[in-house]
């Protein structure tokens, strides 16, 4: 079980949940478990080809999964995932 932190812009798709528990032994599996539980998150996180959208960064603990093993990166019990789309608010 990993904890996935949901950014503000995705919370409408997770019934307002800020953190979601999801199962899986890789990043891909954990995110699949998230999008299964909250289908509206799917097209915000994944492109049509099943890869991560380029405007979404996913971190395993504090490392960008793109510099780890991408969706195949192993996830251990208690790991934290951060989903991070860019924000531009300043006003």
């Amino acid at each position, binding site marked *: 079980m990993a904890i996935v932190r949901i950014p503000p812009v995705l919370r409408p798709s997770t019934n307002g949940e800020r953190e979601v528990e999801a199962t899986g032994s890789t990043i891909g599996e954990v995110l699949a478990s998230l999008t299964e539980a909250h289908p509206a998150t799917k097209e*915000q996180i994944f492109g049509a080809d099943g890869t991560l959208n380029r405007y979404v960064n996913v971190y395993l603990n*504090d490392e960008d999964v793109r510099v780890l093993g991408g969706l195949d990166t192993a996830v251990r019990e208690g790991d934290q995932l951060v989903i991070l*789309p*860019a*924000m*531009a*608010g*300043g006003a």
Partner: protein
Amino acid sequence: MEGSTQNGNPAKSAAELMAEIKKQVEEVEPIDVADGLVEGAVVVDVREDPELAGGVVPGSAHIPRSFLEQRIENAAPDRDKPVVLYCAGGVRSLFAARSLIEGMGYRDVRSMRGGFQLWKDSGLPFDVPQTLNDEQRDRYSRHLLLNEVGVEGQLKLLNAKVLLLGAGGLGSPTALYLAAAGVGTIGIVDNDVVDRSNLQRQIIHTEDRIGTPKVESAAIAIAALNPDVNVVAHPVRIDASNIMEIISNYDIVVDGVDNFPTRYLLNDATVRLGIPVVSASILGFEGQLSVFAPYVGPCYRCLFPVPPPPELAPSCGANGVLGVLPGTMGLLQATEVVKLILEQGEPLIGRLLLYDALATEFTTLKISRDPECPICSRAPDAISDDEMGVFPDYDAFCAGSH
């Protein structure tokens, strides 16, 4: 006096002590210091602040005698390298040199004979340093007490030129604290006027300035806080046609803009010019912060190569923001700006700080340079005007966001 004092140490006259120290500490002639005969030496002026007004040895560090032991390691970290101390007449520097040798284990500390007076009388070149006036010594006294700031650091702040993009939620607290800290030139880009709905968070503005251009309102507040600060108002909207000209006059840019096209444009222009950007964004109860230092760490495009689609990129206007949140994030920006100016501490380069106000949680994520970054993987002069601020699907993005 004869014999021993009560604590058992022999009593000596000042002249006897001097003679003894002169046997211990090697003296060096000003002309030899000027000619670089003490190879690799760190030259330290140990006079007190007010004595510097008449001039200093070019390239010397300044540590007042009273702080010498506390601060010498910043100026001379290597105890095996030679250090030359000088004062006004060559006496205080002798005592000071002995303290560094005996008390701190410096191997080669010499005292410049005759001090700065003999240097000047020998016709050697000197610099007349910028100093703080009495009012400034008073105003910045809490900075002057910090080893990491001191007079030298405060002068760096006074000489620094910082550009704020936006005098809004983030820009308001940043501008006020940078002004209070004595950042000498603060440029502000904003083409908006003060609106009542701004006042919940944009603390540089006031009820009686509703309707006033924000750059003007900010300049009034800054002038009331610190007359040392020169405010440069840029009452324009920044775009590809004016960005290079506006930002090239500044040392650091503080980014608090509310839209992606300007963030990309700013990124590309600052990479070309080699200007660091202290960037923050806010939404709801959460903020992000990072320092993008061109070619040192990742740039904004390394982190976010493309913007999210408009439905995932709401602005604060549409989604609301807790009034104190830009205060928190803006002051974190101001802190990073001051660190960059002072060259102290670890700037937030290659790291992204997330702040969640509801959870009271700070999270730091690592971000790296993208070897395939469309901008910072190339040399500054290889980046053309045409591609600045442009990203895939730019037209569709901008159409969708209006």
